[in-house]
């Protein structure tokens, strides 16, 4: 099987290195890198803004480009975090803790160099895991019927809702809201129009791009208008500055390996957001360090480990998305949506039916990561200059790109209205401390969840026990139950802690609380 995988991978390189595909991969990492640097624009807004552009492309270059945007924007985020202490993207917030002190000590270049090395190492490891894990997963997934698919999707939804950020209850609520938005439109089984409010435009579902850009674009602008203050001072960066010394390399090697493993582990679990992954990697590194007091004052390990974790997670995240059709987080949900728009149904049959796409994508990951390392050296200077563009010029321009992008998906002005509505809804939710990312997960999975739920019960003649009795499905449900119980346990325990804390004051932790993309 391994030999077969390597053969397939070889062919994948053939696909990814075709000039046309290579070009789109390049465009993807470049634009992703650019948008990743900009404050307030993460992978989610980058992918949703450029999604319409891929409609006219062949599926392979389209998906290569989207994947490129994804990991390109991650590299970009680290730049602002380290050089300017701007955690533009939540996963990089933890990188600021040690990255910025390093910059102040004049070692910002080294921090970026280490970031690049650990990112590349971690991504490569994640890719290797993907090559060997996906075919295994697929051989299991072929045994799945509607019952199993429903249970594993339920697991994905619970993970996505409870584990990403903040209160698990609120995450679940947002997932449910997303599932409901997914219901809008015509019921496939009976043709009944549901929740369309009599609007013909809504009978064909809510538009994915409109939903994503409303929630992650407009909501963000509404939140930061007149509040975002970017003061970036001139930072010069030369190639020479970025080369870490031998001692620094040695110091960050094991943190890098540990971060990679943590990221891989969390990537395999659907629903754990990138932010939580980087935080855990950082906390772990600080815990096992012999000199924990250095953390927060420019410890290079505090940069290497979380950056490695976020990059291996990014790659491993693609495994459940591509081979089971179950996205782990909102970004993956968007990529899944893009595949569906291209007429490709992600799932176990994807690897066999679209072998060129799957292995081409994996090969492009490697090529893209190499491109990023090469690009980053000359581009960092430009990106830093770009950070000095004031927010007050950025967001009106971005609004225009959103409007035109959404219009071009279906040549419909109605969908731009949808963007506004979802932007306002998102702003209300965010103001009430809800995180909007699970909505996208619920929206993408919703129709599939309902379909499989109905089909499973049709086959079992209405016997709900079928979900528990079938072993694979029962196993997934047991994990679901376990997750909910542990969440309850932690909730109760933190409640007790709060009572204890009232009796004696505790020192606040150094780690800031941020929210998931």
């Amino acid at each position, binding site marked *: 099987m391994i030999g077969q995988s390597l053969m397939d991978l070889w062919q994948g390189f053939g696909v990814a290195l075709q000039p046309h595909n290579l070009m789109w991969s390049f465009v993807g990492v470049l634009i992703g890198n650019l948008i990743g640097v900009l404050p307030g624009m993460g992978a989610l807004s980058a992918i949703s803004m450029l999604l319409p552009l891929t409609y006219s492309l062949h599926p392979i270059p389209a998906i290569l480009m989207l994947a490129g945007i994804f990991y390109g924007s991650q590299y970009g985020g680290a730049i602002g975090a380290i050089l300017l202490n701007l955690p533009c993207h939540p996963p990089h917030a933890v990188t600021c803790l040690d990255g910025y002190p390093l910059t102040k000590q004049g070692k910002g270049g080294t921090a970026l160099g280490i970031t690049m090395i650990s990112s590349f190492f971690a991504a490569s490891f994640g890719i290797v895991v993907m090559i060997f894990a996906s075919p295994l997963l697929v051989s299991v997934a072929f045994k799945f019927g509607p019952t199993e698919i429903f249970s594993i999707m339920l697991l994905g939804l619970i993970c996505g809702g409870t584990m990403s950020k903040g*209160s698990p*209850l*609120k995450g*679940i*609520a947002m997932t*449910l*809201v997303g*599932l*409901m938005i997914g*219901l809008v439109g015509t*019921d496939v*089984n*009976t043709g*009944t129009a*549901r*929740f369309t409010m009599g609007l013909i435009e809504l009978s064909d579902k809510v538009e994915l791009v409109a939903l994503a850009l409303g929630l992650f674009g*407009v909501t963000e*602008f*509404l939140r930061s*208008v*007149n*509040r975002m203050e970017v003061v970036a001072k001139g930072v010069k960066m030369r190639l020479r500055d970025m080369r870490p010394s031998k001692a620094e390399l040695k110091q960050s090697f094991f943190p890098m390996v540990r971060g990679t493993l943590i990221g891989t582990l969390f990537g395999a679990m659907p629903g754990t957001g990138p932010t939580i992954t980087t935080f855990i990697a950082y906390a772990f590194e600080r815990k096992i360090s012999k000199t924990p007091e250095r953390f927060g004052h420019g410890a290079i390990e505090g940069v290497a480990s979380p950056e490695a974790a976020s990059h291996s997670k990014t790659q491993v995240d693609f495994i459940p998305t591509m081979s089971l059709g179950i996205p782990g987080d909102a970004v993956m949900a968007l990529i899944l949506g893009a595949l569906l728009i291209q007429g490709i149904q992600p799932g176990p049959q994807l690897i066999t039916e679209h072998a060129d796409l799957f292995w081409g994508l994996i090969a492009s990951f490697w090529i893209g990561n190499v491109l990023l390392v090469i690009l980053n050296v000359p581009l960092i200077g430009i990106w830093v200059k770009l950070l000095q563009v*004031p*927010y*007050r*010029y950025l*967001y*009106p*321009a971005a*609004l*225009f790109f959103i*409007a*035109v992008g959404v*219009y*071009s998906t279906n*040549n419909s*002005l109605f969908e*731009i*209205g949808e*963007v*506004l509505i979802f*932007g*306002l809804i998102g*702003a*209300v939710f965010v*103001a*009430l*401390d*809800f995180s909007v990312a699970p909505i996208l997960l619920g929206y993408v999975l919703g129709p599939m969840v*309902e379909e499989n*739920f*109905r089909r499973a*019960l*049709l086959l*079992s*003649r*209405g016997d*709900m026990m079928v979900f528990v009795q079938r072993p694979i499905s029962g196993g997934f449900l047991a994990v679901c139950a376990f997750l909910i119980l542990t969440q309850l346990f932690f*909730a109760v325990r933190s409640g007790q802690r*709060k009572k204890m804390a009232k009796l004696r004051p505790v020192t606040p932790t150094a780690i800031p609380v941020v929210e998931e993309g």
Partner: protein
Amino acid sequence: MRNLINKYNKDYYGGGLMMLLGLGAVVQGRTYNIGTLSKMGPGFFPVALGTLLMLVGAAIALTAKNSASAAEEKYVRPEWRGWICIALSIVAFVVLGKYGGLLPATFAIVFIAAMGDRKNSLKSAFLLSSAMVAVCVVIFWWALKLQFPLFQWG
């Protein structure tokens, strides 16, 4: 308003909103055929989701953080000017896009949105929106051949 927010913390509103949304889904879902477990109608899933959301909403409100921690939260002044301008700019794009064409719509969305920021002057907003009009013509109309007339009447 400030006292109200401190006194009743956000989770009451959040939980209440979720219960309201859930109720709405149940009420609307009941108008579709619910069917039976073995042969579900289009109303089954909406009603089930709505019920769940109501329960979760109730749980959010019940487990709301105690008022002490809510009082610590800083009261943030609403940013009306920014919000109204952003909302209006999108509406303007839709309306002008339908009755005026791509160019007026582009100018309007950038100009109105830019006016939402207190630091933008009329002049800088005008320059920015003019620049975006140029970008729009070159990239979307000329290079990407967007199906959207530059000008149209009615």
